[in-house]
């Protein structure tokens, strides 16, 4: 099946993508009805432990997902304008501010998917200078409670976090950070029990954690399969929905089973010799959050350049950053998943080491970064891998010139990535 969007033919290569999308759409509609009937509901950032809410059957929406949906529906310019009209900035922390801005939508018929239900709680981590303020203002605006997980940092840790994280996280992670996260989780559970009347069950929580590990293990196998297969069976556009929709539902049997189905479908494509781009010549890596208002961008270099974006952080982080073996204290195991979320992508040499590790494993010929990443760029250039910085924003489309950006990437492919690819093939 195919869609014609913005003049580009988008191939739906993975049927589980359609299934995941349909499930999520249905689920969201169900949540709207449940909340309308009086059930509790939370809005949470991706960096806080959804597993607690999962275990208590409290529905939630991820802020980053909601902002990506708002952006995909091309509502970012008008919604950000609502912030500016009220004296707040419209050009800061848009990935989070956009969701806040959506609460000023007064027409449910115009709101994406009918709009966000009113939450009982907003749960976030105030890691930058503005996010805590955004959550505070949002909660005040809609009459919700804001619960914050402090975002902490440490001075030193082993470099190979991806090798240690799953089973030796006690060697990797600072105990003070884990202690604080556990203490905050206890506080959150108490508040959720009080606000919702639901009880937290440790047994149920352990089941959720186990299901998450199983789901992420299937993602790890998929990531490894894509890395080892040339031409690639899928592109990143196949992972945005097939991975991220499942990540929002992690801790469910549905999520685990769909992750397995995704792997099996990708494996079948490998067995059947069905690549994403039969004429693949160049393999690209996307560094940063997805361009949610223009996801057709990624596949638009296949026909003319044989260039495939084979990597984005979503499948790779699922593979490397989520699996956490329970070491006896499930809340501490949970903390081990979350305390270093930001450091993976920000604290050098963690990000450059990981991105480069992935680039080499996937046989990448060039990396395209959504924003400046000086240390990562330096690491790639030292490794001889071409690097392009777009200087864009993933949900704020106001400064995105689609034609100009495609032209820049096309030139990058022609002048830098393609020569690298030729050398790679010659050496193979």
């Amino acid at each position: 099946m195919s869609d014609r969007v913005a003049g580009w033919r988008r191939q739906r290569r993975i049927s589980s993508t359609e299934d995941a999308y349909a499930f999520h759409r249905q689920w969201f509609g169900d949540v709207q009805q449940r909340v309308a009937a009086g059930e509790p509901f939370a809005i949470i950032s991706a960096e806080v432990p959804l597993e607690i809410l999962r275990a208590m059957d409290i529905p939630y929406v991820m802020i980053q997902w909601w902002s990506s949906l708002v952006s995909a529906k091309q509502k970012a310019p008008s919604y950000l304008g609502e912030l500016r009209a009220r004296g707040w900035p419209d050009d800061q922390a848009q990935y989070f501010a956009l969701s806040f801005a959506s609460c000023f939508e007064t027409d449910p018929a115009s709101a994406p998917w009918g709009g966000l239900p009113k939450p009982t709680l907003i749960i976030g981590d105030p890691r930058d200078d503005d996010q805590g303020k955004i959550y505070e203002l949002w909660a005040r605006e809609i009459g919700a409670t804001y619960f914050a997980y402090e975002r902490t940092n440490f001075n030193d840790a082993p470099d190979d976090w991806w090798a240690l994280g799953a089973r030796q996280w006690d060697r990797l992670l600072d105990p003070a950070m884990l202690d604080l996260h556990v203490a905050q989780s206890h506080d959150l559970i108490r508040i959720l029990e009080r606000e919702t009347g639901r009880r937290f069950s440790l047994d149920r929580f352990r089941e959720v954690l186990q299901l998450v590990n199983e789901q992420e293990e299937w993602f790890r196998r998929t990531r490894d399969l894509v890395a080892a297969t040339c031409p690639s069976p899928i592109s990143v556009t196949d992972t945005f929905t097939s991975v991220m929709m499942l990540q929002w539902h992690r801790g469910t049997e549905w999520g685990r089973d769909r992750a397995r189905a995704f792997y099996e479908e990708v494996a079948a494509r490998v067995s059947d010799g069905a690549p994403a781009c039969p004429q693949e010549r160049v393999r690209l890596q996307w560094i940063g959050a997805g361009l949610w208002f223009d996801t057709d961008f990624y596949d638009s270099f296949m026909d003319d350049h044989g260039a495939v974006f084979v990597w984005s952080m979503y499948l790779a982080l699922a593979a490397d950053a989520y699996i956490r073996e329970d070491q006896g204290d499930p809340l501490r195991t949970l903390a081990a998943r979350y305390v270093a979320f930001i450091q993976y992508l920000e604290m050098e040499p963690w990000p450059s080491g990981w991105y480069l590790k992935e680039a080499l494993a996937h046989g990448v010929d060039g990396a395209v970064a959504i924003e400046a990443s000086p240390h990562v760029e330096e690491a790639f250039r030292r490794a001889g891998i071409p690097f392009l910085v777009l200087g864009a924003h993933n949900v704020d489309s106001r400064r995105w010139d689609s034609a100009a950006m495609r032209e820049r990437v096309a030139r990058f492919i022609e002048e830098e990535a393609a020569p690298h690819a030729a050398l790679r093939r010659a050496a193979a």
Partner: protein
Amino acid sequence: MVTPRALDDLHASYARRHSALADAGASAVSVVGFDVPLELVDAAGLQPVRLCGDPATPLSGGSGLLDPHGDGEAKSIFDRLRGDRSVRSPVLIGHDRHALLRLFFALRAEDREAAYFCDLVHMPYRTSGTYNVVRLRQLAAVLGDLAGRSIHDDDLSAAIARRNAQKARIAALLDLRRGERPRLTGRDVLAIVSTAQAMSCTAHVALLDDLLEHGESLPAHQGPRVLLTGSEQDHPAVCEAIEALGFVVVAEDHSWGERFADAMVAETGDPYEALSDRLLSGPPGGAKFPVDARARYTATVARRGGAELALAWIRDRDNGPRWDVPDQRARLAELGLPLSLVDDQPYHQSIAAITATLEPLLLPHGLRRALP
């Protein structure tokens, strides 16, 4: 009227702020940010020197390593640290703002021993306080290694008492600015508070005592009274531009001004918990603190100083303060104060450029340019 020698000395030291680290000698420890407790450095027998940027020195290309989140001040400090051989490792960096975390990451990427991140958190909860105490005790161990001695709780308690006495004197001096005819300017306060964070506490207190003794002999200043809020002011250019237009900065809510003096530390109980409470319960900064708390503090400072108008000066990439502005505006409006906003300002710009920006905003409030 003769300006007391002490004020001249403080201004002279302030003018030499970029040499403060070298001037402090072998016992100097570089500190970046307000969150790092000077008291703990004092308790180790070391001399804390809080670093500032230098907007008059262009950035090097290497400062781009802090992109995309590093602001001008953080980049300027980064350049200074890389180019200054008198800097002793590790530099202590606080988590006042996200840009300082990026500074830490950039320094660490070049040399893992170059910087120590003092990760104190800010939410007013028991769990945050417990975490902070752990981090403060770890910082004490680092300082103890640097100094070659352990820091005992009594050492810290004594250091807290000395710094509180310093802050109490500064608070008394700030009263000189709050009268009908201010006897200190905003630039005077910058000099007083900046040097407080860069020179020996004992020596600084001696100057404060001299200044307090002669405070009533200081010349009185005239001009509409301004509250300066928004970004931290680690250099005097904005204040100088405001006062050159004939205004007087009678209040500010940043840590190179009144916020330093307001941040008293309890002298009873566990001294580490007291240091943590300074952040959790003390005066809020423009980043990392709730909007409501920040706006209430801004209004308190404005009322205390008798301000007649407010100016929010916000630097480019300093994202926290911008979200405070609507609440600040509302709180200040309750006091009858208008708030003018100037945002996205480059860190590196001349006083002339700053003045050109401020003139159309401030002069309609009915002021004349100060005569030379």
